[in-house]
């Protein structure tokens, strides 16, 4: 057998940073990494939720850091280097979404969407880079990895989400640009793009998940995904199993970005769900 994978404990001894890790996809990702042996640092703005996730697992610690605050990020990297001396994985999952009509969108809304969803990933990735590189150069890991969380809206923008979609589309471009530059020093950069996922963030735009049939009917899989299903993809991309994946974008959306189908067309072929 030539497989080198250890399916259950792929991140033993690794140090993982998950931004926006106090709820939803970020939290599910932090818990999965911790369960596979990693020391996990979670950042977020909400101290209460941060304390909750930190108390949920021995291997998870919380740092109250806003990804738009470069000084705080730089300080966090110094702490990681001093504490662990290595950094194996950065998951840029900090994000916010609010729907606004384009015509009446405030500059402040535009800036908030761009700052947290796009510029945050830039700051965190650039600040983490020296430690990601030295972890490879020092022989502690074959490669290190950055995983950016884009979105279905980075590929196809829904009404009201022009600012959010712009940030998420740019994050895919940022992924590609970083990937080709950073692979030389052993840092793999890839992207995971979730579709409609049952999290606190999606319910802020889609309303009550239980009553959102209009949303689920547009998803070929016929349902929302779970945060854990996205987390599983993030761990795969970050793992050595994906060692030849560079600059890729793994879409986890139940088929929602496939060309849309009008219900009448499906009925013609007797294909209603």
């Amino acid at each position, binding site marked *: 057998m030539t497989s080198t994978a250890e399916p259950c404990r792929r991140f033993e001894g690794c140090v993982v940073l998950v931004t926006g890790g106090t709820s939803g996809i970020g939290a599910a990702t932090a818990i999965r990494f911790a369960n596979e042996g990693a020391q996990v640092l979670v950042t977020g703005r909400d101290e209460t939720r941060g304390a909750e996730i930190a108390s949920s697992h021995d291997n998870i610690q919380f740092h109250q850091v806003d990804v738009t605050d470069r000084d705080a990020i730089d300080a966090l990297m110094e702490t990681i280097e001093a504490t662990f001396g290595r950094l194996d994985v950065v998951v840029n999952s900090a994000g916010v979404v609010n729907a606004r009509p384009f015509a009446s969108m405030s500059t402040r809304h535009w800036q908030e969407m761009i700052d947290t969803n796009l510029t945050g990933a830039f700051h965190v990735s650039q600040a983490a880079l020296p430690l990601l590189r030295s972890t490879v150069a020092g022989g502690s890991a074959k490669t290190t990895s950055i995983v950016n969380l884009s979105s279905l809206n980075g590929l196809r923008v829904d009404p009201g989400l022009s600012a959010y979609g712009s940030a998420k589309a740019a994050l895919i471009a940022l992924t590609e640009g970083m990937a080709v530059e950073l692979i030389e020093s052993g840092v793999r950069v890839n992207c995971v793009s979730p579709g409609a996922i049952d999290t606190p963030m999606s319910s802020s735009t889609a309303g009550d998940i239980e009553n959102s049939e209009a949303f689920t009917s547009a998803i070929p899989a016929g349902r929302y995904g779970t945060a854990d299903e996205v987390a599983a993809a993030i761990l*795969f991309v970050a793992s050595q199993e994906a060692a030849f994946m560079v600059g890729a974008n793994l879409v986890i959306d139940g088929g929602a970005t496939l060309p849309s189908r009008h219900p009448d067309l499906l009925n013609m072929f007797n294909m209603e769900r």
Partner: protein
Amino acid sequence: MTSLSGLTAIVTGAAGAMGEQEARILAERGANVVLTDVRADEGTAIADDIGDAAVFVQHDVSSESGWNTVVETALSKFGSVNVLVNNAAISKAFKLIDTDVETFDLVYRVNQLGVFLGMKSVVEPMKAAGGGAIINISSVAGLQGTSTIFAYSASKWAVRGMTQSAALELARYKIRVNSVFPGVIDTPMNDANPPGMNEVLVKTTPLRRMGQAHEVAEAVAFLASPQASFATGAELAIDGGMSI
């Protein structure tokens, strides 16, 4: 953890380097595997080496009756069909102006018709099993134009298109259909390339090396597993950054 225990997978082209790794990793994770290929000796040897969880069926993917045999074998030996890996493919390194009809047709029959027949053959058994996962192996040549492998590239774009259509049509049966786009992988298929071409391909890969067959197989195993339960119609490039 990508456990596949209790599942039965069909892997075409399993006597080739990539198909062999796919079959081995799926079996390692607990799946039963039906290996198919036109090359009986090599395929039988690999299945024997994997052990009781594997069986080999000699099979030309462009033969519809052959697919019936493959599915029947999976059902009679292991009781279900849960995963199909459409891996079998051939490559002919010819430019458009040098491609004759016979070459184009041969590449079409294995790389495109074979994938279509495979997907069609497993729909009923996967419906009976309550769902399934189909993984179609396309190529970086299915994401970009190429100047040297015209028929191959055409067939791999077709695989991409068929994957998207099948993902839409089969989602209602909980059959997930995804595609993997390997870049330059270190397999004997590259031996057919003109002198110097492989070196150029590595130079145009940001990771500056060929991928290994098991690196593609890991992506296949992930997409086949319950961990990828919300992924359908996804397009996963395993190419060292070549398609960026």
